[in-house]
């Protein structure tokens, strides 16, 4: 196990091109399961490949414990890596695939045999050792790829979208298996995915990336509950957070956003005065509802489309902001509510579910809910 630290790490592929990874600072503690999450092209795979040594850093530093590894070739970093398409040697059997690395390192035959048996037993591959990759199912191939990466007892385990080629059921099974394996072995793991379900269920910490930059690094609860900016807020959650940017005004009883579209309690006034004439407000779809008790935030909208999803109804609506501005809204409602498209509704949410962001920078503005509650009582 090793502690991995990126200090101001940058990767640029060509002069004049935008950096694939820009000034990344990240500390991955020993034994942590860290997931790099973001849309395609955000730099998460490049970051992983820099840690593996398959890409050189353009600038910055990469540390494994107290060792600077910038110039070390991949094999001297003691990392194991699982690729998206498994990258199994197609002309070799499972046993040969597993033992390739140790044989290349001229490990004694008896030790190689013992390690192969151990790993095969750990991953339930005992009966497949004589087969070639094309004779295995997707899940079995994935286990061989995991096994091969584990053969050299790596200090850091790297996985680049390892489940993306599997079907939904198998993906869920393998996810549980990966979590079990990490619990059992405790190896520092860096996992790349664009699937937030995978990220939130597997990770000790999630690193959300966009355009080569780290937007937020925190526990799954943190990135979901306190998104650092509007990108993270919109990216995490399915569907993502509703975000409305508009001017506000105070009518003496409440604070209104975008004309008469969103109504906030007056206790928000000091915060809004600090933020300026325009703000971005965010509410997650699952926090919006109809006739909620204790709700003090209201959103006026017109229903456009309803999706019946069995356990709940997903409502797509339009919010009429000041002037000609129209904004989209998604809400997840109880399936019992009878709502019709075209209908005008007032949706409610508790004030604790409201997230505020700076309209210009998109950065989160933390609001002390207790002081708000106090203000409300006053």
């Amino acid at each position, binding site marked *: 196990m090793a502690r991995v630290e990126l200090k101001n790490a940058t990767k640029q592929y060509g002069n004049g091109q935008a950096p694939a990874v820009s000034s990344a600072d990240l500390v991955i503690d020993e034994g942590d399961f860290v997931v790099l999450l973001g849309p395609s092209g955000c730099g998460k795979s490049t970051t992983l490949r820099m840690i593996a040594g398959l890409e050189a850093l353009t600038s910055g530093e990469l540390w494994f414990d107290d060792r600077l590894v910038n110039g070390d*070739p*991949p*094999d001297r970093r003691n990392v194991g890596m699982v690729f998206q398409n498994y990258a199994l*040697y197609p*002309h070799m059997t499972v046993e040969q695939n597993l033992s390739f*690395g140790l044989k*290349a390192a001229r490990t004694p035959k008896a030790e190689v045999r013992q390690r192969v048996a151990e790993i095969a037993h750990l991953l339930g591959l005992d009966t497949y050792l004589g087969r070639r990759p094309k004779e295995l199912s997707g899940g079995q191939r994935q286990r061989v790829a995991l096994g091969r990466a584990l053969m050299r007892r790596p200090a850091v385990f790297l996985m680049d979208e390892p489940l993306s080629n599997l079907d939904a059921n198998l993906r869920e099974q393998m996810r549980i298996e990966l979590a079990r394996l990490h619990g059992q072995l405790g190896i520092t793991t860096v996992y790349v995915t664009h699937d937030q379900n995978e990220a939130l269920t597997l990770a000790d910490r999630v690193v959300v990336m966009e355009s080569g930059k780290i937007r937020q690094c925190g526990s799954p609860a943190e990135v979901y509950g306190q998104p650092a900016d509007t990108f993270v807020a919109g990216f995490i959650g399915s569907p993502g957070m509703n975000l409305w940017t508009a001017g506000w005004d105070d009518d003496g009883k409440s604070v209104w956003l975008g004309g008469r579209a969103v109504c906030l309690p007056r206790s928000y006034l000091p915060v809004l005065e600090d933020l300026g004439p325009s703000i971005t407000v965010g509410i997650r779809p699952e926090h919006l509802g109809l006739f909620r008790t204790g709700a003090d935030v209201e959103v006026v909208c017109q229903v456009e489309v309803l999706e019946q999803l069995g356990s709940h109804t997903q409502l797509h609506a339009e919010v009429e902001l000041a002037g000609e501005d129209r904004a989209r809204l998604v809400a997840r409602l109880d399936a019992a509510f009878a709502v019709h498209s075209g209908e005008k509704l007032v949706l409610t949410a508790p004030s604790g579910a409201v997230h505020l962001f700076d309209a210009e920078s998109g950065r989160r503005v933390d609001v002390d809910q207790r002081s708000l509650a106090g203000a409300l009582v006053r």
Partner: protein
Amino acid sequence: MTLLEPVRQRPIALPQSDQSGPRVRRWIPSWMQRLHDSLVAYGLMLPAVAVFIVFFYIPAAYLLYISFFHWGILSSATRFVGLANFRTLFAQPLFLHSLVTSAYYTAVMIPATVLLSLGIALLLKEGLSKRRGAIWRGAVFLPHVTPVVATAIIWVWIFNPQFGLANFVLTSVHLPALGWLGSVNWALPAVMIDSLWHSLGLYVIIFLAGLASVPRDLIEVARLDGAPRHHIFRRIIWPLLSPTTFLVVLLATVNTWQAFSQIFAMTGGPHGGAGGPAYATTTDAVLIYQTAFIYFNFSLAAAMSTILFGIIMTLSLIQKWISDRVVFYR
């Protein structure tokens, strides 16, 4: 199908006419439909097949036919002689010598072709930047698109014993000058160098395509595993390149056994006296040409061609047999 079974039929949807009215459907028996499909398929293949029949199968069959006859181009003394032409050939030391020369030429050329073209392909792929690689790929392929006779003339000059570049290089590093095309020992190697230089471009491109098809992930996994470069090449790249190598060996074998133009251009005089000095470069193809078009013995030339065809066919089948056991197809 028995007579009692109903005839299986399938509907044929006809294009609707512009006039409005009920859609017309015509029912035809399935055997007629199959016949129709087959006729269309054969009709589409016919132009290509016709070219093959006229320019390959008929001449090849005619060649085989001639090889069993005493056949005069102008006389009417054509008569069936059975295997006499073949018996005559195997009793001729020159023919056996030409077979040995061809075999020697092929035996040197095939490994040299594979090793050099693979080596150059690896250098082009790994050792150069993208832009420089494109320039060098063009440079390597250029000789292959240059006419054989033109390159042969250049190489004749290079191998000139008095003022050629080859001897200049040899003497400048204190090695003895060679007779090259005038020497019994060095004429065939000189032809081989020209042939290699001319043909390598094609095989380099084939190997480059093969190398491009080896997934990068596999090499990266091996690097992570700490495998040294030679181990990665021997255990991963080489096995995955085996279909490409097989293709190169097959093409090179066929081309090398049939080598004629470069030998003719480099060793031939104005009266077609190629294959010298002292028959040192007389391969099977050269002897066939001389027998047919200098000595006008078409029957013997046809018999030689049949034997050459048999040798190439046998070699190709042996290669196929080996490839089925050695080559790994993904």
